[in-house]
């Protein structure tokens, strides 16, 4: 017989790196993969789709309508549905999260490009920018703050949503919560929550930093207004 349940620190020490799939370290890595991959793919898909919606305005209503319906689908049944296609793999979590990300990022790209003042776009045309160069050198940089704001929402919600995947055995740190059902032992739950919140805060901080580095002119503008 032991001396009662271990303290939270003892538990962390014992489970940090057991070499098993459910060690805290492995769960953390899985969690990062399953939340970051959807963010990146969602951005890569939302850019061309958002551009298409700006170019062909009639596309925007059906696209955003469809994405909103997808966003409204509860994640758990979607995971269940996908199991029949992609099995109990990380892909089953990554696909829905990618769609959720796109539901936020497509409007962000459209709004971002919409935030380019007409006289700025006109003057870029008049200066002799080719359409591609105008997009890359003028329109996307000006759209960046709005897109990055969308990225912050997606990053945090994606990191938090991954844990639902635990119900199909792919939840990263969410795996720590399901254990508490079987055994009313609190340390894993606390560690799970703290690590997820920490991940979200760090991801958000990195995006804020990226915003500052990529768009110094936005800060200049705020400084002016203050």
């Amino acid at each position: 017989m032991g001396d009662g349940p271990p303290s939270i620190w003892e538990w962390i020490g014992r489970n940090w790196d057991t070499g098993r799939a459910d060690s805290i370290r492995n769960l953390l890595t899985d969690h990062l993969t399953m939340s970051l991959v959807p963010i990146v793919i969602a951005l890569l898909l939302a850019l061309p789709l958002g551009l298409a919606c700006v170019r062909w305005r009639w596309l925007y209503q059906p696209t955003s309508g469809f994405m909103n319906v997808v966003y409204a689908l509860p994640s758990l049944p979607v995971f269940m549905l996908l199991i029949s296609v992609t099995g109990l793999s990380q892909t089953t979590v990554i696909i829905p999260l990618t769609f959720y990300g796109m539901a936020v990022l497509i409007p962000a790209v459209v709004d971002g490009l919409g935030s380019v003042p007409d006289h700025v776009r006109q003057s870029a045309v008049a200066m002799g920018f080719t359409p591609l160069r105008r997009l890359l050198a003028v329109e996307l940089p000006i759209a960046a703050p709005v897109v990055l704001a969308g990225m912050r929402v997606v990053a945090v919600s994606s990191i938090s949503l991954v844990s639902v995947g635990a119900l199909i055995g792919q939840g990263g740190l969410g795996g720590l919560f399901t254990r508490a059902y079987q055994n009313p032992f609190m340390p894993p739950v606390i560690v799970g929550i703290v690590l997820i919140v920490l991940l979200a805060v760090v991801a958000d901080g990195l995006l804020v930093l990226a915003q500052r580095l990529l768009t110094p002119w936005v800060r200049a503008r705020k400084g002016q207004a203050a």
Partner: protein
Amino acid sequence: MITFDSVSKRYPDGTVAVDALSLEAPTGEITVLVGPSGCGKTTSLRMINRMIDASEGEILLDGVPVRGIDPPTLRRGIGYVIQQAGLFPHRRIIDNIATVPYLLGWDRKKARATAMELLERVGLDPALAQRYPFQLSGGQQQRVGVARALAADPPVLLMDEPFSAVDPIVRTNLQDELLRLQSELNKTIVFVTHDIDEAIKLGDRVAVLRVGGRLAQVADPKTLLSEPADDFVREFLGQDRGIRRLRFISADGLRLRTDLTVPEGSDGGTSEPWLLVVDADDRPLGWRPGAEPGRLEPFGTYAHRGDTMRAALDAALLSPSGCAVAVDEQGKVVGVATRQALDEALTEAADG
């Protein structure tokens, strides 16, 4: 020279923006397109650099149809100043100015050096180079817009209501600055405005367009004011055409009297109703009424070299004596233009 050869712009819905416009914008001159909104002036301007393509007719740039030139290449060779400046908010002022040189593939250092020169040329503090557009006032932004248009030294400059979004004092400064720049650079400028006063001030030639994109009249400002082609042009020119026309007549020809000035302190008895009292440096102090030698009345001056009949008449109206005082660059009195002298000059002006 830019030539419009019966150019029309018709939209698919049947709207006619420009209707059979034939016009020449001579090299080295400012041609102003002016008219009410919906007269197709901006459309006409944008057809020159192919931001809009003409439906019919041909626009020639020194004899070469613009239709045959690839739009980005064409545009890099034509400066463009837009209303609200249209500066790129994410680029520093220096990089905004160097936009076209960068597009043309100039060496970055050379492009920036050129941008710095232009910044000073348009009258801005070089310290602004590292700022972002939002940190500049509207007038400063517009100057940057002009500098950007000039960066690659294009022979042609298109200006689309460039000064209409700034307050009247700044606008006047920008207009004067443009005229000063033009006297140094001699660009072929096409300038669009809805403000007839601006058109008359800036234009070597003014083309008045009416709604529906038809040319009503094209003439130099003086002719436009004295001989409007029809009621539309007359109405568009507005009030005070005669007075405004005086701005184009030099005051150099005014007959001056030099026997009406007296030094301060002298009480020279004279039959003249008014005498101009001057200080030891010949600068005017005031008009002394013959009847009341103890008083000094206000006076108005104009520059003997450079001012117009309008300024001279204005100076005369500022004084109860009814005479205008001509002064030189140092403010010293050159002579006095009496009512008779003004009358003669005005009669001559009215004759054309």
